[in-house]
């Protein structure tokens, strides 16, 4: 089942996805557009999202594409800034969760024994607790919430399921012939782990990285909507929070709450489609079963 990493094979799989899977292509275009909006939007659309500089409660027009809010802030500027923040958070969450999960899972799977028992019990515990509730409570206790701090706290609750997957894969790779050979040739464990085991898991890590970006954005949006987001910052969730607290609905300011929700749903669904499609080409068994649709 496991071989050395073949880059050409992966490249071919990706080309296949782009050619054959229309849903993947659509999701890719949607996500790429949102990514570009977040990265370059604030550079080209230079209005200050925090400035209360314009007329209040203006509906969308040519001059204000998405209108303004009750304090005369430009909604498009806020939205672009919010996309940037949300993507940034998703990215940090993915980096931290993948790092924690890979290290703990790899150690448990490769070395086994006592370390494995400890990590396994910890993972079990993290999977048993109602983590969403605990995350919300802990976040409310943090006085000076920053974007980065929030990302760290969210990652604490995201790694366990993934770590369990890593553990399983590493322990089965560790028993494969080429790792036995590497061991017999006298290589050190750490170097086998890094040079022979982990590269074989690249597809698995990439797929999970993508879904962690989605989970990070999703969780942050929820926290921000409850008013528990980072202070002095704008994310897709805090835009909806403001729409709620500034009474956008009873004032009929639909331009305040429709765009952020559309962007959130589009971002999360496109990431999910990308992750599932990647998983289905990397893991042919899923494709046969039809669990992951190609």
């Amino acid at each position, binding site marked *: 089942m496991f071989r050395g990493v073949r880059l050409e094979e992966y490249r071919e799989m990706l080309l296949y996805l782009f050619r054959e899977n229309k849903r993947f292509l659509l999701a890719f275009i949607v996500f790429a557009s949102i990514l570009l909006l977040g990265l370059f939007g604030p550079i080209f659309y230079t209005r200050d999202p925090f400035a209360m500089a314009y007329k209040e409660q203006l509906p969308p027009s040519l001059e204000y594409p998405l209108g303004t809010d009750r304090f005369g802030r430009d909604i498009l500027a806020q939205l672009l800034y919010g996309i940037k923040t949300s993507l940034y958070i998703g990215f940090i969450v993915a980096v931290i969760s993948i790092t924690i999960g890979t290290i703990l899972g790899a150690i448990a799977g490769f070395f086994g024994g006592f370390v494995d028992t400890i990590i396994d019990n910890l993972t079990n515990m993290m999977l048993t607790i109602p983590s969403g509730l605990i995350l919300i409570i802990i976040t409310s206790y943090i006085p000076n919430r920053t974007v980065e701090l929030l990302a760290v706290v969210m990652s604490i609750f995201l790694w366990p399921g993934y770590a369990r997957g890593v553990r399983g894969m590493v322990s089965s790779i560790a028993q494969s012939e080429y790792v036995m050979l590497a061991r017999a040739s006298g290589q050190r464990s750490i170097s086998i782990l890094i040079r022979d085991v982990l590269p074989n898991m690249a597809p698995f890590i990439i797929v999970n990285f993508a879904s962690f970006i989605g989970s990070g954005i999703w969780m942050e949006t929820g926290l921000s909507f409850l008013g528990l987001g980072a202070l002095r910052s704008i994310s897709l969730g805090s835009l909806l929070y403001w729409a709620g607290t500034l009474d956008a609905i009873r004032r009929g300011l639909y331009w305040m709450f429709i765009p952020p*929700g559309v962007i959130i749903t589009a971002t999360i669904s496109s990431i*999910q489609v990308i992750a599932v499609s990647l998983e289905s080409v990397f893991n042919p068994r899923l494709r046969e079963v039809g669990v992951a649709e190609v």
Partner: protein
Amino acid sequence: MNIGKRLLALIITYWITITIIFILPRLIPQNPAWRYLENLYRQYALYPETLRAYELRLLREYGVGMPLWWQYMDFLVRMFQGDLGTSITFYPAKVVEIFLKALPWTLVLLIPVTLLSWTTGTLVGAYVGYKRGSKVDKLFVGLSYVLSNIPSYWLALLMIFTFAFTLKLFPSGGGLSPGVIPSLTTTFIFDFLRHYTLPFITLYIVMTPGWAGSMRALISTQLESDYVNYLRAMGVEDRIIYKYALRYAIIPQLTSLGIAMGGIVMGNLFVETVFSYPGVGYFLAAALGSLDYPLIQGFFVLVVAVVFATNFIVDLIRLIIDPRARA
């Protein structure tokens, strides 16, 4: 799996989680109690007597200023006596009282919506799983990617905007109109249902795709497994094969339902908040906003106990009905 061991693990996990939720706010610099005191000083700076009374209350009831271990022991002892303290925001209501007042609202909303979305989701999932690869299935998968990723609170806002603000068909929130008292009259029932409809539909839309998706995956896995291929090779009728597959697939789906039923006591923080529906989630969100930490802590202790107990019971039932789980 050893039942005793599992129970012990759950109890230890429970103890660790409530300890963390207890200790954490007290370790953080500028902890909530101090932030609360600061607010109090600002608000009542002009009324020294009131302020003094508040201070005494805080000292006595919340153990502010006592050493951490004392507060912790006090918390545990009172917890076993069924006393989870007094709310700060809703003073002088006891946390347990507030919880018991909010719980029926949450149960009345979430039990029917969970059961209904599970039933439709399971039926739809079983159907598209059987027809996997067909046009219906492709449409379902595409649709559920979008539907299952709509944030519930956003959908709730859209619902209020469309049906309460624009069309004026339903009230925009709350549990009952002011002045309506729970009783078995048509006025009450009609008023209750008017407030109930939008949160119910919102939750139904958000919850159903998930159930359908999991059932679709379960039934597909069964239909592609070795025993099904064997039965097919033997020439067994498709309908009969499907019946077998369904029986295996329904067990994990039922397990998830059981676990979800335990989670119901948490309420739905988002939907209850947007609709100001006075359930557990609504009060919890209010408490989070005002840092009412006796209430947060108390709700947490109760909710997690129920969640863990249900998980344990679900495990037990699974052990009894599914011999494979005993391995």
